[in-house]
Protein backbone atom coordinates (compact mmCIF):
# COMPACT_ATOMS: atom_id res chain seq x y z
CA UNK A 1 0.00 0.00 0.00
CA UNK A 2 1.37 3.42 -0.88
CA UNK A 3 2.56 5.88 1.73
CA UNK A 4 -0.32 8.19 0.76
CA UNK A 5 -2.98 5.61 1.67
CA UNK A 6 -1.11 4.75 4.84
CA UNK A 7 -1.11 8.42 5.90
CA UNK A 8 -4.86 8.70 5.24
CA UNK A 9 -5.44 5.56 7.28
CA UNK A 10 -3.41 6.92 10.17
CA UNK A 11 -5.31 10.21 10.10
CA UNK A 12 -8.48 8.30 10.93
CA UNK A 13 -6.86 6.68 13.89
CA UNK A 14 -6.72 9.70 16.14
CA UNK A 15 -5.92 8.73 19.68
CA UNK A 16 -7.42 10.27 22.79
CA UNK A 17 -6.51 13.74 23.90
CA UNK A 18 -5.90 12.90 27.49
CA UNK A 19 -4.19 9.68 28.25
CA UNK A 20 -3.54 8.27 31.63
CA UNK A 21 -2.03 4.97 32.64
CA UNK A 22 -2.07 3.67 36.15
CA UNK A 23 0.99 2.05 37.62
CA UNK A 24 1.49 -1.52 36.43
CA UNK A 25 3.84 -3.89 38.23
CA UNK A 26 5.73 -1.51 40.46
CA UNK A 27 9.49 -1.91 40.64
CA UNK A 28 11.19 -2.97 43.78
CA UNK A 29 13.93 -0.58 42.61
CA UNK A 30 17.66 -1.24 42.47
CA UNK A 31 20.94 0.59 42.57
CA UNK A 32 23.82 1.06 40.17
CA UNK A 33 26.13 -0.64 42.68
CA UNK A 34 24.00 -3.81 42.69
CA UNK A 35 23.94 -3.80 38.90
CA UNK A 36 27.75 -3.47 38.65
CA UNK A 37 28.22 -6.29 41.16
CA UNK A 38 25.89 -8.51 39.12
CA UNK A 39 27.78 -7.71 35.90
CA UNK A 40 31.16 -8.40 37.51
CA UNK A 41 30.13 -12.01 38.29
CA UNK A 42 29.26 -12.83 34.66
CA UNK A 43 31.56 -14.45 32.11
CA UNK A 44 31.74 -11.59 29.66
CA UNK A 45 33.61 -13.47 26.95
CA UNK A 46 30.91 -16.01 26.09
CA UNK A 47 29.64 -15.94 22.52
CA UNK A 48 25.91 -16.48 22.01
CA UNK A 49 24.81 -18.55 19.01
CA UNK A 50 21.38 -16.93 19.31
CA UNK A 51 22.76 -13.51 18.42
CA UNK A 52 25.18 -14.28 15.57
CA UNK A 53 26.32 -10.69 14.97
CA UNK A 54 26.62 -9.53 18.56
CA UNK A 55 30.21 -9.39 19.80
CA UNK A 56 30.48 -10.30 23.51
CA UNK A 57 33.06 -7.60 24.27
CA UNK A 58 31.02 -4.85 22.61
CA UNK A 59 27.86 -6.16 24.31
CA UNK A 60 29.21 -6.23 27.88
CA UNK A 61 31.31 -3.06 27.49
CA UNK A 62 28.12 -1.36 26.38
CA UNK A 63 26.22 -2.60 29.46
CA UNK A 64 28.99 -1.25 31.68
CA UNK A 65 28.81 2.10 29.90
CA UNK A 66 25.02 2.19 30.34
CA UNK A 67 25.52 1.73 34.08
CA UNK A 68 28.38 4.21 34.42
CA UNK A 69 26.65 6.82 32.29
CA UNK A 70 22.91 6.18 31.77
CA UNK A 71 22.68 9.35 29.70
CA UNK A 72 24.92 7.78 27.07
CA UNK A 73 22.12 5.72 25.43
CA UNK A 74 22.29 6.59 21.75
CA UNK A 75 19.31 5.61 19.54
CA UNK A 76 21.33 6.03 16.34
CA UNK A 77 21.40 8.42 13.43
CA UNK A 78 18.33 8.39 11.10
CA UNK A 79 16.54 5.64 13.04
CA UNK A 80 13.05 5.68 14.57
CA UNK A 81 14.41 4.60 17.95
CA UNK A 82 14.05 7.96 19.77
CA UNK A 83 11.07 6.80 21.87
CA UNK A 84 12.99 3.72 23.02
CA UNK A 85 15.90 6.03 23.89
CA UNK A 86 13.64 8.13 26.13
CA UNK A 87 12.30 4.92 27.68
CA UNK A 88 15.87 3.73 28.37
CA UNK A 89 16.51 6.90 30.32
CA UNK A 90 13.53 6.10 32.56
CA UNK A 91 14.42 2.43 32.97
CA UNK A 92 17.96 3.31 34.05
CA UNK A 93 16.59 5.80 36.58
CA UNK A 94 14.31 3.15 38.09
CA UNK A 95 15.99 -0.23 37.83
CA UNK A 96 19.57 -0.57 36.54
CA UNK A 97 19.94 -4.09 37.98
CA UNK A 98 16.72 -5.18 36.25
CA UNK A 99 18.10 -3.82 32.98
CA UNK A 100 21.44 -5.68 33.06
CA UNK A 101 19.84 -8.90 34.34
CA UNK A 102 17.25 -8.74 31.55
CA UNK A 103 19.91 -8.06 28.90
CA UNK A 104 22.08 -10.92 30.13
CA UNK A 105 19.12 -13.36 30.10
CA UNK A 106 18.17 -12.20 26.63
CA UNK A 107 21.73 -12.75 25.42
CA UNK A 108 22.00 -16.21 27.01
CA UNK A 109 18.52 -17.63 26.38
CA UNK A 110 17.03 -15.53 23.58
CA UNK A 111 14.11 -14.61 25.82
CA UNK A 112 13.71 -12.75 29.10
CA UNK A 113 11.25 -11.04 31.41
CA UNK A 114 11.36 -7.39 32.37
CA UNK A 115 8.92 -6.20 35.02
CA UNK A 116 6.48 -9.06 34.16
CA UNK A 117 6.74 -8.37 30.40
CA UNK A 118 7.91 -11.41 28.48
CA UNK A 119 10.21 -10.73 25.51
CA UNK A 120 10.96 -13.34 22.85
CA UNK A 121 12.35 -11.47 19.84
CA UNK A 122 11.94 -12.68 16.27
CA UNK A 123 14.76 -14.44 14.43
CA UNK A 124 15.14 -11.46 12.05
CA UNK A 125 15.74 -9.11 14.99
CA UNK A 126 18.29 -11.47 16.52
CA UNK A 127 20.22 -11.57 13.26
CA UNK A 128 20.03 -7.79 12.79
CA UNK A 129 21.36 -6.95 16.27
CA UNK A 130 25.06 -6.22 16.07
CA UNK A 131 24.91 -5.54 12.35
CA UNK A 132 23.37 -2.05 12.28
CA UNK A 133 25.80 0.27 10.53
CA UNK A 134 26.26 3.95 9.83
CA UNK A 135 24.20 4.91 12.85
CA UNK A 136 27.00 6.77 14.63
CA UNK A 137 28.31 5.29 17.86
CA UNK A 138 25.36 2.84 17.92
CA UNK A 139 27.41 0.85 15.36
CA UNK A 140 29.66 -0.40 18.19
CA UNK A 141 27.04 -0.44 20.99
CA UNK A 142 25.80 -3.97 20.62
CA UNK A 143 23.73 -4.07 23.82
CA UNK A 144 21.84 -0.95 22.78
CA UNK A 145 21.22 -2.43 19.33
CA UNK A 146 19.70 -5.51 21.03
CA UNK A 147 17.67 -3.37 23.46
CA UNK A 148 16.18 -0.99 20.86
CA UNK A 149 15.40 -3.74 18.35
CA UNK A 150 13.79 -5.95 21.00
CA UNK A 151 11.63 -3.10 22.30
CA UNK A 152 10.50 -2.18 18.78
CA UNK A 153 9.75 -5.85 18.07
CA UNK A 154 7.62 -6.22 21.20
CA UNK A 155 5.59 -3.02 21.47
CA UNK A 156 3.23 -2.19 18.64
CA UNK A 157 0.93 0.74 17.96
CA UNK A 158 -1.17 1.78 14.98
CA UNK A 159 1.85 3.31 13.22
CA UNK A 160 3.27 -0.21 12.97
CA UNK A 161 0.06 -1.65 11.49
CA UNK A 162 1.43 -2.16 7.98
CA UNK A 163 4.90 -3.22 9.00
CA UNK A 164 4.96 -5.52 11.97
CA UNK A 165 7.81 -7.85 11.02
CA UNK A 166 11.39 -6.71 10.88
CA UNK A 167 13.18 -6.60 7.52
CA UNK A 168 16.57 -5.04 6.71
CA UNK A 169 16.72 -1.27 7.41
CA UNK A 170 13.37 -1.31 9.26
CA UNK A 171 14.98 0.52 12.17
CA UNK A 172 14.47 3.61 9.95
CA UNK A 173 10.90 2.77 8.94
CA UNK A 174 7.37 2.62 10.36
CA UNK A 175 8.29 -0.74 11.92
CA UNK A 176 10.10 1.16 14.69
CA UNK A 177 7.81 4.22 14.88
CA UNK A 178 6.08 5.16 18.13
CA UNK A 179 2.92 7.19 18.68
CA UNK A 180 1.98 8.90 21.91
CA UNK A 181 -0.27 6.21 23.42
CA UNK A 182 2.27 3.47 22.57
CA UNK A 183 4.96 5.47 24.35
CA UNK A 184 2.78 5.88 27.44
CA UNK A 185 1.96 2.19 27.42
CA UNK A 186 5.65 1.25 27.16
CA UNK A 187 6.62 3.53 30.04
CA UNK A 188 3.80 2.21 32.19
CA UNK A 189 4.56 -1.46 31.48
CA UNK A 190 8.34 -1.24 31.63
CA UNK A 191 8.73 1.18 34.53
CA UNK A 192 5.56 0.43 36.49
CA UNK A 193 4.90 4.10 37.07
CA UNK A 194 1.93 6.38 36.83
CA UNK A 195 1.93 8.21 33.48
CA UNK A 196 -0.23 11.20 32.64
CA UNK A 197 -0.18 12.68 29.17
CA UNK A 198 -1.86 15.61 27.49
CA UNK A 199 -1.90 16.00 23.72
CA UNK A 200 -2.25 13.66 20.78
CA UNK A 201 -0.56 12.49 17.59
CA UNK A 202 -2.11 15.18 15.42
CA UNK A 203 -3.53 17.95 17.58
CA UNK A 204 -1.58 19.94 20.13
CA UNK A 205 -2.50 19.81 23.82
CA UNK A 206 -5.05 22.25 25.18
CA UNK A 207 -2.57 23.92 27.47
CA UNK A 208 -2.79 27.72 27.49
CA UNK A 209 0.74 28.37 28.66
CA UNK A 210 3.04 25.38 28.04
CA UNK A 211 5.98 27.12 29.75
CA UNK A 212 4.12 27.49 33.08
CA UNK A 213 2.67 23.98 32.74
CA UNK A 214 6.15 22.48 32.34
CA UNK A 215 7.79 24.73 34.91
CA UNK A 216 5.22 23.67 37.51
CA UNK A 217 5.87 19.95 37.02
CA UNK A 218 9.53 19.59 36.14
CA UNK A 219 10.92 19.44 39.68
CA UNK A 220 8.54 16.81 41.02
CA UNK A 221 8.18 14.62 37.89
CA UNK A 222 10.09 13.32 34.93
CA UNK A 223 8.77 15.11 31.85
CA UNK A 224 8.93 13.68 28.37
CA UNK A 225 7.85 15.75 25.37
CA UNK A 226 6.50 14.54 22.05
CA UNK A 227 7.57 17.26 19.63
CA UNK A 228 7.67 18.27 16.00
CA UNK A 229 11.42 18.33 15.61
CA UNK A 230 11.19 19.47 11.99
CA UNK A 231 10.35 23.02 13.07
CA UNK A 232 13.47 23.46 15.16
CA UNK A 233 15.63 21.10 13.14
CA UNK A 234 14.59 22.02 9.61
CA UNK A 235 15.31 19.53 6.86
CA UNK A 236 14.36 21.68 3.87
CA UNK A 237 13.58 25.32 3.09
CA UNK A 238 9.87 24.95 2.35
CA UNK A 239 7.69 27.26 4.37
CA UNK A 240 4.60 25.07 4.27
CA UNK A 241 5.14 22.00 6.38
CA UNK A 242 2.81 19.24 7.48
CA UNK A 243 2.76 19.68 11.22
CA UNK A 244 3.19 16.33 12.91
CA UNK A 245 5.21 15.20 15.91
CA UNK A 246 8.40 13.34 15.08
CA UNK A 247 10.51 13.03 18.20
CA UNK A 248 10.49 12.10 21.91
CA UNK A 249 12.78 13.91 24.34
CA UNK A 250 13.29 14.04 28.11
CA UNK A 251 13.03 17.60 29.39
CA UNK A 252 15.76 18.39 31.93
CA UNK A 253 15.47 22.15 32.45
CA UNK A 254 13.36 25.02 31.23
CA UNK A 255 13.84 28.73 31.84
CA UNK A 256 12.55 31.97 30.39
CA UNK A 257 14.29 35.29 29.76
CA UNK A 258 12.86 38.19 27.74
CA UNK A 259 10.25 36.04 25.99
CA UNK A 260 12.94 33.55 24.94
CA UNK A 261 12.80 30.06 26.38
CA UNK A 262 15.87 27.96 26.95
CA UNK A 263 15.17 24.25 26.87
CA UNK A 264 17.68 21.71 28.03
CA UNK A 265 16.74 18.18 27.07
CA UNK A 266 18.14 14.70 26.69
CA UNK A 267 17.80 12.78 23.48
CA UNK A 268 20.68 11.27 21.49
CA UNK A 269 23.23 10.20 24.07
CA UNK A 270 23.56 13.60 25.69
CA UNK A 271 21.98 16.91 26.55
CA UNK A 272 21.04 19.64 24.12
CA UNK A 273 20.35 23.26 24.96
CA UNK A 274 18.18 25.25 22.65
CA UNK A 275 16.71 28.75 22.65
CA UNK A 276 13.25 29.22 21.17
CA UNK A 277 10.45 31.75 21.40
CA UNK A 278 7.32 31.08 23.48
CA UNK A 279 5.38 30.85 20.20
CA UNK A 280 7.71 28.17 18.85
CA UNK A 281 7.43 26.20 22.09
CA UNK A 282 3.66 26.11 21.68
CA UNK A 283 4.05 25.17 18.01
CA UNK A 284 6.37 22.20 18.53
CA UNK A 285 4.70 20.42 21.46
CA UNK A 286 2.15 17.70 20.64
CA UNK A 287 2.39 15.69 23.82
CA UNK A 288 3.47 16.35 27.40
CA UNK A 289 4.04 13.14 29.33
CA UNK A 290 4.29 13.51 33.09
CA UNK A 291 5.87 10.53 34.79
CA UNK A 292 6.11 9.91 38.54
CA UNK A 293 9.65 10.17 39.85
Amino acid at each position, binding site marked *: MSTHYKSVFYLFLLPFFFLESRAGNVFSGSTKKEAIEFLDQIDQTKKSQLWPNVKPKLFYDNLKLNLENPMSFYPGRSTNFCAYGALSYLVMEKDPLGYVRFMNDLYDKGEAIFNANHFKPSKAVMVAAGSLQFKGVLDIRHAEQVWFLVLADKFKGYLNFFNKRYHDDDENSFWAATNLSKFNRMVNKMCGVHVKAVGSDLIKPWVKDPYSYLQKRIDSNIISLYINNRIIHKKNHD*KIKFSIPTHFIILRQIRKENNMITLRYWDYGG*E*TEMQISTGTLKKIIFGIITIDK
Partner: protein
Amino acid sequence: MIGNLFTVLISCLLLATSCSTKIISTNYYQEKKGTVDSIESRYEKLNARKPFAIAFTDKKLNIISLEMISDSLTRIYEFNLGEQRLGDTLLKFNYDTAGIYYLIRKMQQTKVTWINSVDYYVNDQPQQLIYLSIKPVTIRYLFSPPKYIALGYFRTAQSFDEKGRLLDNRRTKQVRKIKGQVFYRITDRICYTITDKYR
Protein backbone atom coordinates in the same frame (compact mmCIF):
# COMPACT_ATOMS: atom_id res chain seq x y z
CA MET B 1 -17.72 26.24 -18.64
CA ILE B 2 -17.06 25.84 -14.94
CA GLY B 3 -16.94 22.08 -15.47
CA ASN B 4 -14.28 22.47 -18.18
CA LEU B 5 -12.26 24.82 -16.02
CA PHE B 6 -12.44 22.32 -13.20
CA THR B 7 -11.18 19.53 -15.49
CA VAL B 8 -8.29 21.71 -16.69
CA LEU B 9 -7.38 22.58 -13.10
CA ILE B 10 -7.45 18.94 -12.03
CA SER B 11 -5.32 17.96 -15.06
CA CYS B 12 -2.77 20.66 -14.24
CA LEU B 13 -2.68 19.51 -10.65
CA LEU B 14 -2.14 15.88 -11.64
CA LEU B 15 0.55 16.90 -14.12
CA ALA B 16 2.26 19.02 -11.50
CA THR B 17 2.25 16.31 -8.88
CA SER B 18 3.69 13.79 -11.33
CA CYS B 19 6.69 16.05 -12.13
CA SER B 20 9.64 16.20 -9.86
CA THR B 21 12.07 19.04 -9.23
CA LYS B 22 14.78 19.39 -11.87
CA ILE B 23 18.27 20.54 -11.02
CA ILE B 24 19.46 22.93 -13.73
CA SER B 25 23.11 22.00 -13.62
CA THR B 26 23.96 18.33 -13.45
CA ASN B 27 27.61 19.16 -13.05
CA TYR B 28 27.38 21.46 -10.05
CA TYR B 29 30.29 19.96 -8.14
CA GLN B 30 32.73 20.23 -11.06
CA GLU B 31 31.73 23.88 -11.65
CA LYS B 32 32.21 24.84 -7.98
CA LYS B 33 34.84 22.28 -7.10
CA GLY B 34 37.51 24.73 -5.90
CA THR B 35 35.21 26.66 -3.56
CA VAL B 36 33.32 23.64 -2.23
CA ASP B 37 36.55 21.74 -1.51
CA SER B 38 38.02 24.76 0.27
CA ILE B 39 34.86 25.07 2.43
CA GLU B 40 35.22 21.41 3.36
CA SER B 41 38.91 21.67 4.26
CA ARG B 42 38.40 24.92 6.22
CA TYR B 43 35.55 23.30 8.14
CA GLU B 44 37.64 20.22 8.84
CA LYS B 45 40.37 22.33 10.48
CA LEU B 46 37.98 24.48 12.52
CA ASN B 47 35.88 21.48 13.58
CA ALA B 48 38.97 19.57 14.75
CA ARG B 49 39.72 22.41 17.20
CA LYS B 50 36.17 22.65 18.57
CA PRO B 51 33.29 20.69 17.02
CA PHE B 52 30.33 22.49 15.47
CA ALA B 53 27.82 22.31 12.62
CA ILE B 54 26.17 25.07 10.60
CA ALA B 55 22.85 25.04 8.74
CA PHE B 56 21.11 27.82 6.83
CA THR B 57 17.47 27.57 7.84
CA ASP B 58 15.86 30.14 5.55
CA LYS B 59 15.50 30.28 1.77
CA LYS B 60 17.54 33.48 1.40
CA LEU B 61 20.39 32.01 3.44
CA ASN B 62 20.47 34.79 6.01
CA ILE B 63 19.62 32.81 9.14
CA ILE B 64 21.90 30.13 10.53
CA SER B 65 21.42 27.40 13.08
CA LEU B 66 24.72 26.91 14.86
CA GLU B 67 25.35 23.68 16.77
CA MET B 68 28.18 23.99 19.27
CA ILE B 69 29.14 20.50 20.32
CA SER B 70 30.97 19.41 23.47
CA ASP B 71 31.19 16.03 25.22
CA SER B 72 28.46 16.84 27.70
CA LEU B 73 26.24 19.34 25.90
CA THR B 74 25.21 20.45 22.42
CA ARG B 75 24.03 24.04 22.18
CA ILE B 76 21.78 24.89 19.24
CA TYR B 77 21.22 28.60 18.68
CA GLU B 78 19.73 30.43 15.72
CA PHE B 79 21.15 33.74 14.50
CA ASN B 80 20.49 36.28 11.83
CA LEU B 81 23.85 36.85 10.12
CA GLY B 82 23.81 40.56 10.93
CA GLU B 83 23.36 40.00 14.65
CA GLN B 84 26.14 40.94 17.06
CA ARG B 85 24.95 38.04 19.22
CA LEU B 86 26.57 35.57 16.80
CA GLY B 87 30.07 36.97 17.29
CA ASP B 88 29.54 37.31 21.05
CA THR B 89 28.42 33.68 21.31
CA LEU B 90 31.36 32.35 19.29
CA LEU B 91 33.72 34.34 21.45
CA LYS B 92 32.03 33.22 24.68
CA PHE B 93 32.44 29.56 23.80
CA ASN B 94 36.02 29.95 22.53
CA TYR B 95 35.41 29.35 18.85
CA ASP B 96 37.64 30.84 16.13
CA THR B 97 35.28 33.74 15.44
CA ALA B 98 37.03 35.10 12.34
CA GLY B 99 37.47 31.61 10.87
CA ILE B 100 33.80 30.71 11.34
CA TYR B 101 32.59 34.06 9.98
CA TYR B 102 34.71 33.46 6.85
CA LEU B 103 33.32 29.93 6.50
CA ILE B 104 29.73 31.19 6.84
CA ARG B 105 30.30 33.83 4.13
CA LYS B 106 31.78 31.23 1.76
CA MET B 107 28.88 28.86 2.48
CA GLN B 108 26.38 31.62 1.78
CA GLN B 109 28.07 32.56 -1.53
CA THR B 110 28.25 28.94 -2.70
CA LYS B 111 24.75 28.05 -1.37
CA VAL B 112 26.10 25.40 0.97
CA THR B 113 23.12 24.95 3.29
CA TRP B 114 24.61 22.55 5.83
CA ILE B 115 27.99 21.31 6.93
CA ASN B 116 28.57 18.70 9.57
CA SER B 117 30.96 15.99 10.65
CA VAL B 118 29.52 12.48 10.86
CA ASP B 119 31.13 9.59 12.72
CA TYR B 120 30.94 5.98 11.57
CA TYR B 121 32.83 2.77 12.33
CA VAL B 122 34.90 0.35 10.27
CA ASN B 123 36.16 -2.79 12.08
CA ASP B 124 34.93 -1.14 15.30
CA GLN B 125 37.28 1.82 14.75
CA PRO B 126 35.91 5.37 14.50
CA GLN B 127 36.05 7.13 11.14
CA GLN B 128 34.93 10.55 10.07
CA LEU B 129 32.97 11.83 7.13
CA ILE B 130 32.26 15.47 6.35
CA TYR B 131 28.81 15.93 4.93
CA LEU B 132 27.67 19.09 3.19
CA SER B 133 24.56 20.03 1.22
CA ILE B 134 24.22 22.51 -1.61
CA LYS B 135 21.04 24.23 -2.72
CA PRO B 136 21.27 24.23 -6.52
CA VAL B 137 19.19 26.25 -8.98
CA THR B 138 16.12 24.14 -9.75
CA ILE B 139 12.88 24.12 -11.69
CA ARG B 140 10.18 23.21 -9.22
CA TYR B 141 6.70 22.08 -10.05
CA LEU B 142 3.72 22.53 -7.77
CA PHE B 143 3.89 20.11 -4.80
CA SER B 144 7.22 18.67 -5.90
CA PRO B 145 9.77 18.43 -3.09
CA PRO B 146 12.90 20.58 -3.02
CA LYS B 147 16.17 19.06 -4.17
CA TYR B 148 19.64 19.39 -2.71
CA ILE B 149 23.00 18.01 -3.73
CA ALA B 150 24.64 16.29 -0.76
CA LEU B 151 28.37 15.63 -0.80
CA GLY B 152 30.22 13.18 1.43
CA TYR B 153 33.96 13.67 1.95
CA PHE B 154 35.61 10.55 3.37
CA ARG B 155 39.11 10.60 4.85
CA THR B 156 40.15 7.43 3.02
CA ALA B 157 39.44 5.86 -0.36
CA GLN B 158 36.09 4.07 -0.55
CA SER B 159 34.75 1.16 -2.59
CA PHE B 160 32.18 1.61 -5.34
CA ASP B 161 30.40 -0.88 -7.60
CA GLU B 162 30.32 -0.79 -11.41
CA LYS B 163 27.37 1.66 -11.28
CA GLY B 164 29.44 4.00 -9.11
CA ARG B 165 27.39 3.31 -5.96
CA LEU B 166 29.12 3.59 -2.60
CA LEU B 167 29.65 0.17 -0.99
CA ASP B 168 30.00 -0.88 2.64
CA ASN B 169 33.51 -2.17 2.05
CA ARG B 170 35.67 -3.98 -0.47
CA ARG B 171 34.65 -7.45 0.72
CA THR B 172 30.88 -7.01 0.44
CA LYS B 173 28.83 -5.86 -2.49
CA GLN B 174 26.33 -4.26 -0.13
CA VAL B 175 25.40 -0.70 -1.04
CA ARG B 176 26.01 1.69 1.85
CA LYS B 177 23.24 4.16 2.52
CA ILE B 178 23.87 7.41 4.35
CA LYS B 179 20.68 8.85 5.84
CA GLY B 180 18.76 6.37 3.75
CA GLN B 181 20.33 7.57 0.48
CA VAL B 182 22.54 5.80 -2.02
CA PHE B 183 25.67 7.83 -2.81
CA TYR B 184 27.55 7.90 -6.13
CA ARG B 185 31.25 8.28 -6.91
CA ILE B 186 32.87 11.60 -7.78
CA THR B 187 36.40 10.65 -6.73
CA ASP B 188 37.60 7.67 -4.67
CA ARG B 189 36.88 9.59 -1.45
CA ILE B 190 34.14 12.06 -2.47
CA CYS B 191 30.62 11.00 -3.35
CA TYR B 192 27.25 12.67 -3.91
CA THR B 193 23.53 12.14 -3.89
CA ILE B 194 20.42 14.13 -4.77
CA THR B 195 18.06 14.41 -1.82
CA ASP B 196 14.85 16.14 -0.63
CA LYS B 197 16.45 17.09 2.67
CA TYR B 198 19.56 19.13 3.24
CA ARG B 199 20.31 17.47 6.57
